[in-house]
């Protein structure tokens, strides 16, 4: 602690007589240090005095020995229980018309079902970083949704995340299903990623030291998940860039907006669609995929107090371009038919959620997709090109007996498949056990 002072004193003794400016500077520094330390000692002394003078507290100072001392360093653990009852038409495979199916997305089950049970653990690893783990369990399937470390000591607004994580692109992407405002995913994220875009890789994030919230992020990853595919190669298989801007308007309003870009490649990315004869064909896509996304969130609470009433509005838009080769098998395609593949597709969702009294919220969401331009090249003779716009209206009402539980009723009018005009009912519960971490904006 006093080492610099001793060093300075030693140097002053070693080079005495010369009145050089360096020495003067050192002396000044020494003096400055001495006053600083004196002030600190004074502070500590007065602190002790005051502690002695202050009235003794009733709560006993001596805490009872903590029986669970051995568990003190265990990570925070939480478990999410989710289940539902769904009233749906029997339509078999649910493929959104005009779009390639995104990954092995689970179909919604009719009747009673239990959704993924999430097990979450997190803790500081050491003074330099923290770790987070999220596992989804369902029947015989266990999937590691997230498993990452993030630095906490770099400072200057910089943090690095590494491992498997949900990408920072878009707005909803980092939210796990239990934190969604509706019982099911919006159509935009369903066609883009299935559920959300997760990746194995690295993320670099920087928050600017400005009054307005300004954040930039870049990610490089394996790119194995849809719209990319695992290409088993060195280097980065996908790249993500995103920027966020946000702030307050008065004490009652706050907002955040963002722009994101995802660039990845696919090699023999499998998909199953229907051909012109409505027969199932298997497709394989090899090529480039680029996605632009824009998002805006606006939240309101009277005087900024969200406890009684609050309102939030969220909307996201995407535009995806894919170019390359598409081969198809079976049905009209026969053994194998290769053709150029070129698409530009877009879509958006907009949702509003209103807590009109403590515990009760209601919300409305509108989904709209535009199949845009699809060119199958040589396969135009085999595969259908749709110009119908899939849409859906959803209305929900939820009740939260406490911060840790929620029951939700949702009705949706789904027109996301040709010939389908379905009324859907969901009754869903989400319960959170244990130390549930704070949610993001």
């Amino acid at each position, binding site marked *: 602690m006093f080492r610099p002072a001793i060093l300075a004193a030693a140097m002053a003794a070693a080079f005495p007589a010369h009145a050089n400016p360096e020495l003067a500077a050192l002396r000044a520094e020494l003096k400055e240090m001495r006053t600083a330390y004196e*002030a600190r000692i004074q502070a500590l002394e007065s*602190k002790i005095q005051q502690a002695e003078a202050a009235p003794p507290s009733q709560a006993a100072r001596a805490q009872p020995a903590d029986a669970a001392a051995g568990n003190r360093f265990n990570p925070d653990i939480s478990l999410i229980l989710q289940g539902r009852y769904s009233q749906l038409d029997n339509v078999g495979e649910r493929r959104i018309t005009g779009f390639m199916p995104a990954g092995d997305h689970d179909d919604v089950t009719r009747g009673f079902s239990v959704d993924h049970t999430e097990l979450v653990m997190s803790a500081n690893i050491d003074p330099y970083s923290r770790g987070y783990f999220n596992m989804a369990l369902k029947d015989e399937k266990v999937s590691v949704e997230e498993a990452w470390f993030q630095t*906490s000591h770099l*400072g200057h607004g910089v943090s690095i995340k590494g491992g498997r994580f949900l990408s920072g692109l878009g707005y909803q992407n980092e939210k796990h299903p239990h934190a969604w405002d509706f019982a099911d995913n919006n159509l935009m994220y369903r066609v883009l990623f299935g559920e959300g875009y997760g990746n194995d890789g690295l993320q670099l994030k920087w928050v*600017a*030291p400005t009054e307005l919230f300004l954040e930039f992020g870049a990610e490089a990853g394996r790119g194995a998940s849809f719209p990319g595919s695992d290409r088993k190669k060195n280097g980065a298989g996908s790249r993500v860039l995103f920027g966020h801007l946000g702030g307050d308007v008065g004490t009652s309003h*706050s907002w955040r907006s963002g722009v994101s870009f995802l660039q990845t490649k696919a090699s023999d990315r499998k998909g199953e669609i229907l051909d012109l004869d409505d027969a199932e064909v298997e497709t394989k896509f090899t090529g480039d995929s680029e996605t632009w996304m824009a998002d805006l969130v606006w939240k309101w609470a009277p005087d900024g107090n*969200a406890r009684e009433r609050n309102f939030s509005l969220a909307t996201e838009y995407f535009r995806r371009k894919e170019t390359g080769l598409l081969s198809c098998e079976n049905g009209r395609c026969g053994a194998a038919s290769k053709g150029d593949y070129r698409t530009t597709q877009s879509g958006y969702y907009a949702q509003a959620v209103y807590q009109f009294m403590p515990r009760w919220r209601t919300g409305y969401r509108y989904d709209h997709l535009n199949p845009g331009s699809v060119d199958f090249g040589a396969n135009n003779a085999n595969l259908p090109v749709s110009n119908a716009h899939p849409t859906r209206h959803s209305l929900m009402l939820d009740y939260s007996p406490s911060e840790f539980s929620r029951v939700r009723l949702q009705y949706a009018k789904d027109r996301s498949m040709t010939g389908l005009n379905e009324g859907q009912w969901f009754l869903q519960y989400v319960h959170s056990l244990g130390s549930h971490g*704070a949610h993001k904006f």
Partner: protein
Amino acid sequence: MKRLIGLFLLWLPLSSHAALNVFACEPEWASLARELGGDDVRVYAATTAFQDPHRIEARPSLIAQMRRADLVICTGAELEIGWLPVLLREAGNSRVQPGQPGYVETAKWVALIDKPAQVDRSAGDVHAEGNPHIHTDPRNLLRISAALAARLAEIDPPNAQAYQKRGQSFDARWRTAITRWESRAAPLRNQPVAVQHKSFSYLLRWLGLREVAVLEPQPGVEPSVTHLARVAAQLQATPARMVLRATYQSARPADWLARRAGIPAVALPYTVGGSDRASDLFGLFDDTLDLLLKAAP
């Protein structure tokens, strides 16, 4: 491009010799930081007296402020558990991470009461470490101000003496004020009161008021009509002189019960900014005492 970068750099704050940026989670700590820091600090209060400190959104504006903070002053004891961890994680500011000198939890400097013997969520939104509403006992502020002045001196050594001087001045004025408040509050001793949430446990203990009923069935759980009716019946057996609530809490339950029991409902400012007169810590207690004395004949 070069000009763009230049413009961007100009836009960044020039902060080599600027005042210390203090991020206060609650208005009471913002006010205390202003008392001790004077012109040497620039204080940002993350919440107002009209917001429930348990339930704050981790808004982008708060992340931006956290990013620039040299010192973060919060209550701790899990009061801010729903939002502070997100701000600390997202802001990427190493100076104010827990364990660093730039991170202060005032609850660590005082002894907490209402520490639950058993922690289980069936008991509502309980705080395992104890009741976090520590600033409602002014004697706690004596300890906290001394420790905070020392901490300010530690992270801003060039101004160390100024912090100490202001600390001593505040200490002297605060002790005088406590004596004044205590003598004024003598008639309140042993008066029975009902409270909406356990926000005033420290205040009641200091003034010797007796808490005979709590409107919330469990901490943080909104009272239902059936529960309020039960409380009203309970108050017939053990009457209370008044029903207390904080300004940020809904007026409905306290007003309903007050009408039913024929006693006054009192909205206390709870923290700095909670009423016109509570513009600083001194005003907060002046106003609180006036309101209590007015309600208790």
